[in-house]
């Protein structure tokens, strides 16, 4: 049994990470999940949150992601995030997230019915994420 897996994190604009990991914690839409080697194949959608990848040497790298999806296999985990940045990224990354939050708030204000719930959840997740980054 392999005890590492290939972890890739790509955003539309670039590939942020590609490394061997022992476990990856993913903020899935219905709650955080941790993928380890030999995980059953699954595709999940993401919510805004922190993604934690543990490298072979035990170092944990944190990334902040917004929506997207993750594809998990027995030997790999690929995360395709709409927006992703290294978690302790201050300054521009933070500003970008705050921009998202503002936009999301606006959308939540305009939305109605079921989509309002979705939009409000997105706002709440973003707020959470920003707090977690501090």
């Amino acid at each position, binding site marked *: 049994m392999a005890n590492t897996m290939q972890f*890739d994190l790509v955003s539309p604009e670039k590939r942020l990470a590609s490394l061997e990991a022992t476990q990856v914690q993913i903020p899935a839409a219905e709650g955080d999940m941790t993928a380890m080697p030999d995980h059953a194949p699954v595709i999940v959608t993401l919510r805004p949150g922190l993604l934690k990848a543990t490298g072979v040497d035990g170092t944990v790298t944190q990334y902040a992601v917004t929506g997207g999806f993750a594809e998990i296999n027995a030997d790999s985990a690929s995360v395709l995030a709409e927006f992703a940045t290294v978690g302790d990224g201050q300054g521009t990354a933070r500003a970008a997230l705050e921009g998202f939050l503002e936009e999301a708030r606006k959308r939540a204000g305009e939305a109605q019915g079921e989509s309002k719930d979705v939009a409000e959840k997105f706002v709440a997740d973003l707020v959470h994420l920003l707090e977690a980054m501090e």
Partner: protein
Amino acid sequence: MPSLKDLKNRIDSVKSTRKITKAMQMVAAAKLRRAQDAAESARPYAERMEAVMSGLAASVGGSDGAPRLIAGTGSDQVHMLVVMTSERGLCGGFNSTIVKAARLKIEELKAAGKTVKILTVGKKGREQLKRDYRSLFVDHVDMSEVKKVGYGNASAIAKDLMDRFDAGEFDVCTIFYNKFISVISQEPTVKQIIPATFEAPEEGAEAGALYDYEPSEEGVLADLLPRGVSTQIFTALLENAASEEGARMSAMDNATRNAGEMIDKLTIEFNRSRQAVITNELIEIISGAEAL
């Protein structure tokens, strides 16, 4: 016969033109590199996205409850054409080829009795289409302030399209852009993005593991489809940016070479007329001396 002074002036002006085109060529080369890098780094995301979506679409698409973005609205009466061109000229046939492809499609659709709507991205295409199809324009996206195409630009366009689609403004959406092949060759590409089309997975390719989907196949697909549209638009924008700089680079290379040839020709003419003037003066002096 132009005077020596005239020739001199013309040579000077062609020389300064050559300087400008040379500089533009070098700027385009630098920008091309960046645009190519950007297109390159966007590829893994787009490829993965496409792979996952086509897998999903194959399993969900056939059923009755398929999302409208795949199944379409059930009619193909109203077509939305998104024509992507550049903001600036001096890039050879770059814009004309896209516009030509768009014109062809517009005429074809019109002949078939369909309704056509046009959304333009980039000023140049708008200008060229304005004369004949002004009444078909629905919107225009101005990219002149955008220095580097970001995913945000693409998702803004995609969002606008989705809103229109949801409002029932059109049934089919097609994008027009130039696919970057090499510096001297760009291929005008016409791609239908709504309803989404996928290349059939290759026969014999690994069927892939059977994935579980969370929350559900439909849920994941509903979440992915809009992203798929943004991704396709983003890819198109990046390809277009690279093509534009490539086209500009080769156009300016040609211009520089032409200017060089012209300078050579003018210089020869200049030397000949100078020689003629000298010969004339000599004849005058000699015949003057002989007359004495």
